[in-house]
Each structure stands twice: as structure tokens, then as C-alpha cells.
């Protein structure tokens, strides 16, 4: 009878009839409902493996949040190609793990992780910014990686822990990020334009005074001696105003009192320096007060308008070589690296006055597959993979610096720049501080308002809301 019924519910091709499909679906649905309502529905420790037959492990999909928009620039396409190659390699090594990419705008990826944590939306692996690590610690949206990292050998840990970015991601014994590289900045200069102006391209400036003198000589119709960026975004403060303040011996924020301190004497000198470059010495165009950092600096290099450009990141070595041909064999790094029409010199500030950061890798606190996400993090952090990452800038692993590719004069300049590196202040209200400083400098430049009073007004505004927090 049962057999007959079964045969009735299947057609001659052995396919299910609608009635049988509905019946089985109902049974399946009811079972799923019962299972989900059962006390054991919450995540449980793995049960003992069955003795009769090994359980087939379900494929796991992990989400990777990245910031590479191929439509944005060829550099972003190169980064996306790198990420895809890393993911392919990872999937070959880990056949049970699928990877799904999620794109977010680069300056919103951290905020998205915080907001989604509060909203209960889970991610797995994500790229993250060291400047925002204090904010992440406060928000609690990233997983503590120290239990995983403690399984690394001491040698492996030391290979990363030299980096200020690693330390910025560590608090109270918790490590919430691992750096992928080193982003530091240097001054790009056109060797051909130095020669034209009677300057020796093999002896680039070493001090601020020499840099300014060179800028004056290089400035002429259609060419600016020193490209900078004083626009309305955060890069204004990070790459220009803050290093100037540090250069004059000041700081933006006091970790003891947790108050903004950028209206100090050093702050006034820093703002005066920016003002003088544009209006007194006229070696920097007024146009750099608007727009976006990458637009201003990269367009200035692309059009040849900037004979020198301050604050060019190590993440732009590739476009400087591939898009404008100023370098040869420098990216990926090789022993044959040769500067052609362009080169870099170390930012002529005092030591520890060059903003240095890097993209990091973190795991979202709500990740359903943290073990698998860490596996991917570990795989990405392999020296071979980081070596090929265009946006790494410079090696995060100390051992990588010993490779012959990094012994060239070109990369030794970058290593020296990195050694002068300094991270941003460790306040959880860093974005507000950066935006406030940028707005203050802009007001000084566009309205020619008195420097000490203007800086004080903006400092008071920040302190009224965030001092002590």
C-alpha cells in the first residue's frame, strides 16, 4: 500500500508530484521550526563526532569587506585583482570555505562595521583603518584576535609587532587588527624639472629650508614648486597640518587631559607655514584649498603642474610608475628599480613627524565563522601575498625589508620615511578632531582670519563636546 502511494505521488519520470512536494515541504518546515525552537537551537559547542560515519562538513561562506572600486581608478582595479588572486589561492587551500566579497567606500568601511555591529548585521573579514582603532575599541565591533595570534610563533609575531600600526591596534591585551603594510608619505619630485631649474636631482632637499628654496626656484608660469593639499577632507590634517604641528614640537591632542591642543604655539606656526606657502611665497596654488586629496595631488603630478608634491603616499608608487612613467621596475619592488623623470625624498621634518598608517585586517565581532575568517587573515598575511598587494605601500613584515628588492636606494628612502613615522592621536573622537583641524586651517586660508584666535575657536568647539572623553 505504502509502495503504491509512493508510486502514485511520483510521475513516470520519477519526478515528485506537486502533492508529494507540498507534503515533504510541510514535514521539512515543521522539523526545521521544531529544531529552531528547541533549547539547543543556539550555537552549541561541537558535539562528539559520530562513530559510524564521519559527518560531511557543510561548506562555509565568509564575507570579505573591501574598498576596491574598479571604476574609481586603475589602482583600485589592481588592488581588486590582487584580492581576487588571494581569494582564489585561499579557496584552493580550503575547499570547504567559500568567499563572498562586499564592497564599501574606503572612508566608510570602518563606520559601516561599527553601525552594522550595533544593528546586529554580521560580517566576517574586513579591512580597517588604524586611525579609527580607538573608536573600534570603544564601539566593540571587532573580535579580539589575541587568542588566535597567540598560536603564532614568537618569530612570526615579532615580524609584525615592530609596526606602530600593530601597536595602535592593541589595548589592554586585546589585538583587534593586523597590518597589511606601511603607508607613509614622502616628497615626490621631478628630476627633469630639477635639472631644468639648475638644481641637482641627485641631491634632493634634506631640510625644510632647502625644500622651500627649491620650491621657489621651481615655481614659474604653469608650474608650482610645492604641491600640497589644504582641502576640506581629513587628509588636510593628517598629511599636512598635523606633521607641521609635530615638526614645530606640538601635538593635536593631549592623552593625559584628553583635550585638543592644536591651538598651541606650534599649531599657530603650522597654520602660518601653510598660509605662507600659498600667499607669501606663492609656491603652492590656492586651488589646493578645495577638492579631494587624491584629485589634487595625483592631478598635479599627472599634469606636471607640481614640480614637487608633498605628502605622496607609498600606496601611489604603482601609479607614479605605471600611469606617468616616472619610475621603472619599482612596483612590484625589484632590484632593478630605477627612478627616471621622478623620484622621492624623505619629508624634511624633524623625526617622528611624518604621518604613517596602513590598512589593517580585522574580524567582525558578529562573525558567524571567525575561525574561517582568521584562516583567510592568516593566509593574506603570508609574505608572498602582502608582497604583491599594491595598497600595502611598504612591507608590514620586518623580515620582508631584508629582501634584496627593498635594499635599493629607492626603497631605503621609503624605509627612512617610515622610520620617521607617527600615528594619529589615540582619541575615539579622531574623525571629529581631524575634521575640526581641517576646517580651522581652511578658515584661516580662505578668510585670512587671525590664526591664534581662529585655532582657539575651533579647539574650544571640539573640547566643548569631547574633552575628557
Amino acid at each position, binding site marked *: 500500500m505504502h509502495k503504491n502511494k509512493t508510486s502514485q505521488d511520483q510521475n513516470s519520470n520519477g519526478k515528485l508530484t506537486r502533492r508529494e512536494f507540498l507534503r515533504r515541504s510541510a514535514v521539512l518546515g515543521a522539523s526545521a521550526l521544531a529544531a529552531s525552537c528547541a533549547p539547543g537551537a543556539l550555537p552549541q559547542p561541537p558535539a562528539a563526532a559520530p562513530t559510524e560515519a564521519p559527518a560531511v562538513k557543510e561548506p562555509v561562506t565568509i564575507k570579505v569587506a573591501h574598498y576596491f572600486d574598479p571604476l574609481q581608478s586603475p589602482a583600485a582595479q589592481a588592488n581588486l585583482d590582487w584580492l581576487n588572486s588571494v581569494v582564489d589561492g585561499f579557496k584552493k587551500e580550503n575547499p570547504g570555505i567559500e568567499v563572498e566579497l562586499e564592497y564599501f567606500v574606503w572612508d566608510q568601511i570602518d*563606520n559601516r562595521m*561599527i*553601525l552594522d555591529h*550595533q544593528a546586529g548585521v554580521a560580517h566576517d573579514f574586513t579591512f580597517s583603518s588604524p586611525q579609527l582603532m580607538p*573608536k573600534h575599541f*570603544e*564601539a*566593540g565591533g571587532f573580535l579580539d584576535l589575541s587568542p588566535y595570534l597567540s598560536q603564532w610563533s614568537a618569530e612570526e609575531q615579532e615580524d609584525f609587532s615592530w609596526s606602530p600600526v600593530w601597536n595602535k591596534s592593541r589595548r589592554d591585551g586585546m589585538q583587534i587588527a593586523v597590518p597589511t603594510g606601511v603607508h607613509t608619505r614622502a616628497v615626490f619630485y621631478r628630476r627633469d624639472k630639477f635639472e631644468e631649474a639648475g638644481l641637482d636631482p641627485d641631491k634632493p632637499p634634506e631640510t625644510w629650508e632647502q625644500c622651500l628654496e627649491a620650491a621657489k626656484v621651481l615655481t614659474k608660469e604653469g608650474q608650482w614648486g610645492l604641491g600640497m593639499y589644504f*582641502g*576640506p*577632507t581629513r587628509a588636510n590634517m593628517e598629511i599636512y597640518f598635523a606633521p607641521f604641528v609635530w615638526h614645530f614640537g606640538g601635538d593635536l591632542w593631549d592623552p593625559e587631559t584628553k583635550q585638543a591642543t592644536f591651538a598651541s604655539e606650534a599649531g599657530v606656526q603650522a597654520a602660518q607655514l601653510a598660509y605662507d606657502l600659498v600667499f607669501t611665497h606663492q609656491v603652492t*596654488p*590656492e*586651488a589646493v*584649498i*578645495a*577638492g579631494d586629496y587624491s*584629485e589634487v595631488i595625483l*592631478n*598635479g603630478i599627472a*599634469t606636471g*603642474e607640481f614640480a614637487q608634491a608633498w605628502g605622496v603616499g607609498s600606496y601611489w608608487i604603482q601609479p607614479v610608475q605605471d600611469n606617468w612613467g616616472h619610475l621603472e621596475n619599482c612596483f612590484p619592488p625589484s632590484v632593478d628599480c630605477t627612478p627616471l623623470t621622478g623620484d622621492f625624498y624623505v619629508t624634511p621634518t624633524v623625526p617622528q613627524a611624518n604621518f604613517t598608517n596602513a590598512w589593517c585586517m580585522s574580524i567582525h565581532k558578529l562573525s558567524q565563522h571567525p575561525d574561517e575568517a582568521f584562516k583567510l587573515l592568516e593566509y593574506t598575511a603570508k609574505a608572498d601575498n602582502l608582497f604583491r598587494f599594491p595598497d600595502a605601500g611598504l612591507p608590514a613584515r620586518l623580515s620582508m625589508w631584508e629582501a634584496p628588492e627593498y635594499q635599493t636606494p629607492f626603497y631605503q628612502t621609503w624605509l627612512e620615511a617610515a622610520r620617521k613615522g607617527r600615528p594619529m592621536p589615540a582619541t*575615539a*573622537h579622531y*574623525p*571629529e578632531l581631524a*575634521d575640526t583641524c*581641517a*576646517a*580651522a586651517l*581652511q*578658515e584661516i*586660508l*580662505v*578668510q585670512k582670519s587671525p590664526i591664534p584666535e581662529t585655532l582657539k*575657536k575651533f579647539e574650544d*568647539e571640539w573640547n*566643548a*563636546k569631547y574633552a575628557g572623553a
Partner: protein
Amino acid sequence: MRSTLARSMDRQRGHGSLYWLNKYKLPFLFLLPTAVLVIGFLGWPMLSILYFSLQKTSLQGTSTFVGLGNVRLLLNEPRFISNLGTTLKYLGGNLGLSVPLAYLGAILVTGKLRGTGIFRSIFLLPWIIAPVVSAILFRTMLDPRLGPVAQVIKWLTGKEALFLVDPDLALLTIILHSAWRSFPLEMLLISAGIASIEQELYDAAKVDGAGAWSRFRHITLPLTRSSLVTAILVITIWTLQDAEGAYSLTFGGPGYATEVTGVRLFKEAFIYFNLGIASTIGSALILLSVLFMVLYIRGLGMGEEV
């Protein structure tokens, strides 16, 4: 549907509101879904904004009651006062530019000229382009080095056109962008009003010897008043709350010169996570929108028609 008189008679007969509710439950049933949607999607978020405007929220998501602390903080802050001033200039500039142009556009597309269909399509283009995209287009066109507009001005005047460096020009730029985007909707609303005017009115006026200006002044303008007020009202609310266009174009700079309240709200809510301050700004924007709504309806007499 019963009149007010009938309901009054019911009350006089001693029937309470429950009786009345029971007797006329069908209309209330019909109104129920709309009421639920309005309360769910408008009332609840508004209450939520009010609640959060009285709180100080932490990054962990916890909040502390601060009463009117956020209001005091904002009112004592020169930046917020500047934000409000910039917003009013932004609104005034947008309406002042876009409404007359939209009216002209509406007359053009409702006229009997050949090719009005093409104009209608062209005029709608700014409306269908996403504000972030159009803002980036504007920024590119005004780029002092590579932008065609800046290049033409430099060629004509010999001076570099730094639109986004000068605070007044930057404000003018966001106003132009907003007016460019507001124009199509205003035009559509006004042209709907013009199209609803009976042709006989114009014919009669012509017979009476009225000229074009007279016909416009005494027929078109009064009969499109309702559409005009609707257009102005919609664009006012839209401009007061605009963040994406202004932010994408100038990031609120230089300094805080173009930081309208919508941009400030966006920064506080989604970049700084100051939900308390963002909600207070949101409440201020709602109050400002209601104030303008009342002013327009009373001032322009739309209330009599609705």
C-alpha cells in the same frame, strides 16, 4: 458620509462617541491602514528622534538622559548658528533661482510650440540623475585645472576660477546645483496646474482685449497659485533636508562655509555617531519645515483652497 450637523444632532440625542464609532465603523476601517502606516513610518520615527534628542549616546550604543543639554550645546556653538544661516541662504538662493525658471519652463512645455516634447524630456534630466553623481559632475566641471567651466572663465578673464575655494562662490555653487536639480519637479507641478486651466478663459479674455501679460497676470498666475505653493513647499522641505548634494560637492567647506544643517546632521549621525546631537538637529529641521509650511499656506492663501 454624515455632515457635521448630523453628528451634532447625534450628540444632542445623547449618543456618545462609542456609539458614533460603532455606527460609522466602515469609514474608520478604511482609514485604518493609512493611519497605521502614518503612525508607523512617521509618528514613531518622530517620537524616536525626540527621545534621542534628549539623550547623549555612547559608541557602545548606551544612552544617558541629558534633557535639553544637546539643544543648549548647539545654541551656544557658533558653528551651528552658522549652519542655520547657511541653510537659509541655501534655501533662499535655490527657490529664488529655480522657481522663476521652472515657471518659464512650465509655460514652454505646456505651450503649443513645436518640439515641446523634446524640451520636456531635456528638462527632466537633472531630476533623474542621482545627486551624488551630479555633484561630482559639477565638481569636475569646476575643477580649476581640468574643468571646462573653469577653463572657459580663465580664458575669458585671464584669472583662475576658484569656485570651491571662495566661501561665497562655493555657496553659490551648491545653490546652482540644487536649483538645477529642483527645477524639473517644480516645472512638472506648475505645468500640471497650467494644463488644468480651461482654454475658454483665455479665449474670453482675448475677446475682451486682454494682452499676453494681462492673461498671464489675471488667469494663469492666480489659477496656478495652488501648484506653485505645492512646488515651493516640496522644494523647501527637500532643500532644508538636503545633505548628499552639498556634501558630495564641497564636503561642507571651505571651513564650514557650505555646511548646511543637513550636512551637519549627516556628519554627526553617520561619521561621528553623535546620535543625540544628530537627533536634535533633525528635530530642528522638522520644526523649521513645519514653520515654512505654515508660513507658505497662510501667506499664499493656499489654506483657503484645500
